[in-house]
């Protein structure tokens, strides 16, 4: 056994990451051309209206994203981390969750946030710099964005351990990127999850890049195989195929809920935009790569399928476009109307209980500010969301 394992690992090692652009074997239910295919392990029964709803989600989150990018260019946001290209990975996994499941996102999970009913303005608020998110995580079962790479995977695992203690039939999804797999925290999360058999799905969006670093800087074998080293299953899914992502994530969540422990899902996808609006990818990658991934667009293939099968007509697509326009307008208006926080809010919420130093500094600063100006108030507005 030991020699076999050693031997096979050696083979794997020799294999390395397949050359860029080559087609890795992955779970797929809808081809880039919009053809529905079957997979022996993952079947998916899906009603037409669910299919259309997925399409709608994909279009709407892309529109929120592009509007946010535009707002950043106009100086309304400090920065924006675009999900362009990763809509299917996020909507597929987000829609796979049950209401009681809980998600721990990175800073790019705008599509998952949408599925959990988080107002897109909350996301913009963070990138505008008025707060760090501002939604109630427990209301949405969607944790705040985590910016320190990988840290949230341990929170997710702990949360899942708590669900297990509660005897809840729920599961957690921990989102992270390909780069994040190199962090100690992520690997420790794998260990805790496997040792405690915690109901957590590790959902890695391998978008091929960690800022300027290609996946080869993080691993020499396909990422989903990392799970093998920790004794739980890993599976690679076409991250641009919303149906496959839905099916694979659903199965993984169900396994977790049923006590089979963690699964690593590698959603094989591509970051079509810059890392963030501050980034300039022309410095480190070839447009040719981008072009080849354009052919695998996560939205186009669903549209092609809906059109070919007659499951949606032009009126439907027009309707979704209209909705997207409205949503973009809502996002733009809400963003422009967002007021800056009260300076004294710096001292709010640092502690749950009284803290003399913070109180003292708050008072002193209030007195100091009074010599200049009076503080502004904060406004809020109701919001359309994709939530339950």
């Amino acid at each position, binding site marked *: 056994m030991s020699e076999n394992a050693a031997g096979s690992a050696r083979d794997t090692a020799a294999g390395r990451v397949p050359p860029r652009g080559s087609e890795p074997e992955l779970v797929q239910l809808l081809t880039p051309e919009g053809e529905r295919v079957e997979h022996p392990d993952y079947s998916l029964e899906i009603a037409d209206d669910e299919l259309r709803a997925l399409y709608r989600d994909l279009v709407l989150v892309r529109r929120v994203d592009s509007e946010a990018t535009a707002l950043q260019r106009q100086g309304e946001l400090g920065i924006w981390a675009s999900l362009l290209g990763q809509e299917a990975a996020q909507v597929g996994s987000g829609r796979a969750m049950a209401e009681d499941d809980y998600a721990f996102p990175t800073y790019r999970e705008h599509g998952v946030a949408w599925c959990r009913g988080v107002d897109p303005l909350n996301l913009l608020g963070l990138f505008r710099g008025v*707060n*760090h*998110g*501002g*939604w*109630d*995580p*427990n*209301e949405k079962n969607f*944790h*705040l964005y*985590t910016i*320190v790479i990988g*840290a949230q*995977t*341990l*929170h*997710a*695992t*702990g*949360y*899942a*351990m*708590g*669900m297990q*203690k*509660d005897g809840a039939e729920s599961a957690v999804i921990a989102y992270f990127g390909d780069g994040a797999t190199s962090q*100690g*925290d992520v690997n*420790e*999360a794998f*260990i*805790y999850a496997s*040792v405690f058999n915690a109901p957590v799905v590790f959902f890695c969006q391998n978008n091929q890049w960690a800022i300027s670093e290609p996946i080869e800087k993080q691993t020499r074998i396909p990422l989903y195989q990392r799970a093998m080293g920790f004794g739980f299953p890993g599976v690679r899914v076409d991250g641009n195929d919303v149906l496959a992502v839905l099916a694979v994530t659903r199965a993984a969540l169900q396994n977790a809920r049923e006590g089979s422990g963690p699964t690593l899902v590698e959603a094989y996808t591509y970051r079509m935009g810059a890392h963030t609006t501050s980034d300039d990818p022309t410095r480190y990658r070839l447009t040719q790569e981008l072009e080849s991934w354009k052919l695998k667009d996560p939205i186009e293939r669903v549209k092609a399928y809906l059109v070919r099968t007659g499951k949606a007509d032009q009126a439907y697509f027009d309707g979704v476009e209209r909705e997207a326009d409205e949503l973009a307008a809502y996002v733009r208006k809400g963003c422009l109307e967002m007021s800056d926080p009260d300076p004294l809010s710096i001292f*709010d*919420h*640092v*502690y*749950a*209980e009284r*803290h*003399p*130093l*913070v109180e003292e500094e708050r008072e002193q600063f209030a007195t100091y500010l009074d010599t200049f100006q009076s503080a502004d108030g904060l406004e809020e507005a109701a919001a359309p969301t994709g939530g339950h």
Partner: protein
Amino acid sequence: MTIITLAKGVNMGLRAAMEADPKVLVMGEDVGKLGGVFRVTDGLQKDFGEDRVIDTPLAESGIIGTAIGLALRGYRPVCEIQFDGFVYPAFDQIVSQLAKMRARALGYISLPVVVRIPVGGGIGAVEHHSESNEAYFAHTAGLRVVACSNPVDAYFMTQQAIASDDPVILYEPKRRYWEKADLDESLALEQAAPLHSARVLREGTDVTVIAYGPMVKTAMEAATAAAEEGQDIEVVDLRSLSPLDTETIEASARKTGRVVVVHEAPGFLGMGSELAARITERCFFSLEAPVLRVTGFDTPYPPSRVEEEYLPDLDRILDAVDRSLSY
């Protein structure tokens, strides 16, 4: 009245908290069957089960990171870090996650997590087992940092830390684990001094000596010795390192006009620097001498055969008292 050790005080505090609230968990390396390397969690797993007293994998970032997740789910985890020097792998989880998450979430969530750290030297241990790293955490906004110095405080402060809805770093002076005191178990938690209060342990008029954790006993011994030479030292047990009980501290500084701060941690940017800065800022015209610091040196903690030279002791405290009085 029962005679208990400091280790037993923490143990009984944990037990009381676990009995009072089923959400309280104990987790860490070897806290289960072994009862921890200092036996502080002795018997807890036997009585509360493996589900509530959790032997974790050997990974401190994992301990704190999963504790945060458990707290988000409604639990109140008490994490043991086996020795002071092993908390650093968890540093990011403590300062970027545990400390900041509540503010990040606009108060929608709280993280009632306690991190217990046996702290300090004097037990003849090898490297990394004798560190005093309280300044790192006291400098970190979002945390509360406390240090117990005796069995009775250990018992109450443990429970108070667990009851707090904020993250608390609880320092336990490991070389005082076996010190004994009488505990009046009939006292209710509410009757104990507030968690963030300092305590004037010995009243005096000449010089204030401020200490915390393991150095409190040493400071008291110094005060006794000084009394024989006619020096009347006031000893303040700081108890809370962040936030500070500035009222008690300032009152004492104003009274004596002379302050000596004692701790094992290196002096540069140690607690003594903050106390000196703050006391001087608040009591400028009351001070007869600069606040003096008696601390560990600004070197790595040395091999144990020379640790007694590194650690502040009675003589070094008295030397500083003399210097303070010489102003």
